[in-house]
């Protein structure tokens, strides 16, 4: 007696789940960085081309596979071909790695959220040193927001070898983050379906509020102009196109098995073609929307720092040369400096090391991505706004919603194959399986709360998913087009949707996407090989900045293990099935 498969209450839940999963932190903290680095407004051209050529077809493919096979990733690929069960297992392994480290970001977001209820914000000023004569030394070398991130939040050690101890504050935030995830996935689609209404829509509300606030900030226009002026010469740089392709690829979350899992809970005749187009368009437009917000914030922060710098120089010159107030302004500063240099060359020369050259472009040019953008740059901008507590709370709630939405997809990718398997679902109820998965992930995640935890986080972030996903999706596309057969797939789509896919989709699936993925794969491999040893950025507390160091050998071993664990599943799975079939044939033939 089998229970029928749980379904989404309505197609809207499915769409919201996919949007909630696809629209994640990468849209907020990676896309603006790419935009800035690779040509400003001009980056939109390769981005949109890659969206149409790569994003939509691959998304449609995964949704169709999930919806038709009505199983999680392991079961779905088993149906396509028994030799491909390794692909499903590889997806689950990659999702497992991802959920291990991704929830740590939610833990940090919780930490910052809880600290946002203080007045003034704790990252607004440096703490005092022990004898109260001045500010803490490390804090003076960097800024108060960087100090709060590196010292108070992470308590980071100076290299990956120095483990340090578990930071209990981060550990309890991590436990809380896993409890929240467990609460959302506890009942399967029943609970997930309701939660995604909130996690998908709340970030947009906050982004709109921030857009209005950001555009009205002083200096926001500087950031927007800087971002959107297209530097079209970047289009000739191959890295631009590669990064556009990579961004589309990872932003949609292809290859993890989450999309297959979500689509498997659909009605069989759900129009996944339409939804694939809608979801990918919404994902990309959210990226662009988020980067408008980010750049207005950038502009505000850069202008604020620039004007602060100018004011400090004016103050210094006014004090030393006893000028009347108002004599030096931002406009006449340069001409006055020339006058002072010529008239009082000795005294001016003594002052020269203290006078910084303030430049708005230099402030805008500090392109940051990742946790640096989310937790340092944004919090620095927020502390200078009025009613900063409110904006801080809103911002970190938004980060939490984005992060939890993506976590729901990650855990669905792991849990759906497990609950599909007859063996597990008969012995253990869904709640217990989810609980065990959350518990294991939480325990392993405690590694990231060590003092060196952020370095391990970077390892997982950079290497756990990148190469493996490219391989998985490549195998997926080739499997569907050539192993399963494009004609058979067309017939399935006709059965589901009522019409065959038109020539555009078929060409993309059969030729363009595989070629694109192979070229991305080759690029990544050559990049890894060319750079030789892998390096990482370590925080130097005495200097107050990041320094580059080499990974020790055991870290390199872990990286290799991460990549191998998922990629090797594919050939191993095929090999094992092949051997099992041989054994069966042999045992059958010996019986005769």
């Amino acid at each position, binding site marked *: *007696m*089998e*229970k*029928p*498969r749980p*379904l989404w209450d309505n197609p809207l839940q499915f769409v919201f789940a996919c949007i909630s999963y696809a629209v994640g932190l990468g849209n907020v903290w990676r896309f603006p960085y790419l935009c800035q680095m690779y040509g400003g407004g001009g980056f939109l051209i390769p981005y949109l081309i890659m969206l149409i050529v790569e994003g939509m077809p691959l998304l449609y493919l995964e949704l169709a596979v999930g919806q*038709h*096979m*009505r199983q999680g990733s392991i079961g779905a690929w088993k149906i396509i071909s028994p030799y491909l069960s390794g692909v499903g297992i590889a997806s689950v392994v990659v999702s497992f790695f991802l959920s291990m480290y991704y929830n740590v970001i939610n833990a940090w977001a*919780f*930490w910052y*959220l*809880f*600290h946002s*209820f*203080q007045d003034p914000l704790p990252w607004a*000023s440096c*703490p*005092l040193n022990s004898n*109260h*004569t*001045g*500010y803490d030394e490390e804090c003076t070398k960097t800024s108060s927001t960087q100090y709060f991130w590196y010292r108070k939040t992470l308590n980071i050690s100076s290299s990956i070898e120095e483990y340090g101890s578990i930071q209990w504050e981060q550990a*309890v*935030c991590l436990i*809380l983050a896993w*409890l*929240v995830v*467990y*609460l959302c996935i*506890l*009942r399967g689609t029943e*609970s997930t379906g309701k939660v995604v209404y909130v996690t998908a829509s709340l970030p947009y509300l906050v982004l709109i509020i921030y857009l209005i606030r950001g555009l009205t900030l002083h200096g926001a226009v500087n950031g927007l102009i800087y971002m959107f002026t297209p530097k079209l010469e970047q289009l000739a740089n191959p890295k631009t196109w590669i990064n556009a392709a990579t961004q589309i690829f990872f932003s949609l979350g292809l290859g993890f098995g989450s999309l297959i899992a979500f689509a498997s809970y659909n*009605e*069989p*005749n759900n*129009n996944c073609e339409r939804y694939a187009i809608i979801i990918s368009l919404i994902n990309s437009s959210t990226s662009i929307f988020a980067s408008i917000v980010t750049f207005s914030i950038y502009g505000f922060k850069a202008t604020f720092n620039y004007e602060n710098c100018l004011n400090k120089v004016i103050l210094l010159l*006014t*004090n030393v*040369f*006893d*000028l*009347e*107030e*108002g*004599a030096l302004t931002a406009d006449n500063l340069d001409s006055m400096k020339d*006058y002072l240099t010529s*008239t*009082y060359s000795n005294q001016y020369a003594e002052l020269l090391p203290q006078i910084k050259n303030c430049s708005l472009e230099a402030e805008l040019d500090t392109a940051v991505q990742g946790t640096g953008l989310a937790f340092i740059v944004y919090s620095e901008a927020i502390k200078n706004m009025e009613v900063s507590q409110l904006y801080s709370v809103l911002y970190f709630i938004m980060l939490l919603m984005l992060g939890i939405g993506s976590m729901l997809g990650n855990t669905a990718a792991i849990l759906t194959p497990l609950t599909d398997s007859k063996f597990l679902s008969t012995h253990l*109820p869904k*709640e217990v399986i989810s609980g065990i998965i959350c518990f294991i992930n939480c325990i392993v995640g405690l590694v990231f709360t060590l003092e060196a935890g952020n370095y391990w986080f970077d390892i997982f972030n950079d290497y756990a998913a990148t190469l493996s996903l490219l391989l998985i999706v490549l195998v997926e596309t080739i499997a569907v087009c050539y192993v399963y057969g494009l004609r058979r797939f067309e017939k399935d789509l006709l*059965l*589901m949707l*009522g019409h065959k896919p038109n020539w555009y989709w078929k060409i993309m699936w059969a030729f363009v996407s595989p070629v694109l993925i192979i070229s991305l794969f080759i690029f990544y491999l050559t990049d890894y090989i060319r750079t030789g040893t892998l390096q990482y950025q370590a925080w130097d507390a005495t200097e107050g900045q990041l320094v580059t160091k080499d990974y020790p050998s055991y870290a390199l071993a872990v990286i290799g293990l991460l990549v191998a664990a998922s990629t090797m599943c594919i050939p191993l799975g095929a090999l094992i099935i092949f051997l099992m079939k041989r054994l069966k044939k042999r045992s059958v033939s010996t019986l005769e």
Partner: protein
Amino acid sequence: NGWSLYFDGILYLLKQPECISLFSLSMFKLLIFYLSLQYAWDASEEYLFKAMVAFAMRRYSNKETTQISNVLLCNMTERVSFWFVVTDSARNVTTVPGSEVEAAIRMNRNRINSAFLLTDNTLQFLKISSTLSPPIEPTVPVWLVVFGVVLCLVVAGILLLVVSGIQQRKKNNHESAETGDLEDKSDTPVITENGIPCDILDLKAGQINGVYAADDERLTPL
């Protein structure tokens, strides 16, 4: 030109004779940001300043010997900056050591600031490093309080869902034991599935059959 007038102040023309003789390490320079003053700076404000410095000296040394006349201001400039020195009337025309003055002012800095409605940034004593007031530390960190609240809510939610799930499962087992093997084995990926699991139909009476009420999308096209 007009600029040169402003730069006369650089050559510190000490106009008062006593300032020349007392010029020493015990002299401190005060700078006030003219533009941040909420009032006009005049002789009465100078008097208040002398009073505040005398007050600081009295507080620091716990002797009530310092008089307002012991504080001398020299070389006033338009943007409100001047030098001042504290003399010791017990020993004629000698100055109180700079370290004492410095310590006294540092101890009472916030009182002096608030007397003038200014802050550490807008009222600057050159050569006196300001002691910074430590931030107020609440007894229980605020973040722990919020954390505790959220944690309790989440745990309560989990317990609620788990317990109601267990109860529902017990009810289902009980009822399926009663009704026997009437459940439909519909789990095949065929399009004829109408989307409504049959066990729900068994349990509730009067369920609307979605096959007839469903929209066109559910039906296979002809």
